[in-house]
């Protein structure tokens, strides 16, 4: 766990200058550590993708609410009107 924290600190630049230098030296000396850093980077990338999808799903819920619930009827009609000559209002 200590190592995962060190990698985290290194990648997000939370470490001190001295710790960074030390870590970089270890990276040169330890191929397994290098590999772990790469997988951790890939993991952050996956977390971001996962989170964006969840966020987009939340936004889509808002969209559906605005375009399907009667209380927002005037809003959706206003928007649909912009497109009435281009495509029939379907969602």
């Amino acid at each position, binding site marked *: 766990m200590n190592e995962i924290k060190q990698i985290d600190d290194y990648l997000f630049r939370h470490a001190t200058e001295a710790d960074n230098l030390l870590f970089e030296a270890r990276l040169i000396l330890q191929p397994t550590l290098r590999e772990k850093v790469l997988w951790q980077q890939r993991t952050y990338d996956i977390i*971001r993708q*996962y*989170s964006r999808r969840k966020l987009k799903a939340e936004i889509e819920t*808002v969209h559906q609410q605005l375009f399907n619930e009667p209380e927002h009827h005037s809003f959706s009609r206003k928007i649909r009107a*912009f497109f009435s000559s*281009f495509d029939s209002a379907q969602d």
Partner: protein
Amino acid sequence: MGILYVKFESRKSPQVRKKKHNMFLPDFFFNFWVIFAFKPALINKAFSMAEMMVTEDVAAERKAFFMDLYQKAFPLVARYVSSMGGSFEEAKDVFQDALVIYYEKLTTAPIELQHSEKAYLLGIAKHLWARKNNSKQRHASLDDSLEGIAATENDPASSTEKLMELLNTAGQKCMELLRAFYYDKLPLHKISGLFGFSGTRSATVQKYKCLEKIRDTVKEKSLTYEDFLE
């Protein structure tokens, strides 16, 4: 909504106020103005008092935040896209991507808006629209140009899709925790409360445990899915 002005005023009786005053804080603490950048999750590390003024439910807050932006800014974006010959669906896609970009900007650093929020969102949307249409294939994904912001038609057979599916089921608890830390960038004490940890220390421990677990999964599955290194 770029900047939120909050006035904290003690509503307690003078007696209680005096007592508090004697115990902890100088008087101005009970009546002062604070200006802070508004974040989507309405969190500001420096002012824990501010949290008393917001609802506890982070997801509900976020929903209200997007609902407000949708109503304020989508008409502008829809009108623009329509004037450029785009469809309702295209306007929706562009606008939703703009919301994601805006959200990510807010979580990364407070933004000082030169104009209104809706003007800002329209600006992002115009930019996205231009990119989308400047590329030769009009319906190409925005994926590469925007670091994968657009959720495009995902190839269900790809390694990333398989991994996502797995993480959505088996690893969801950890993924939600990691999302709160790394994407929503909520402060530790908020996360502790949300996920029911005893304190910030145990939240931190759990974060690293989850990170390690997911890293192992990512590695294992990526090596299994042959197309990973393609």
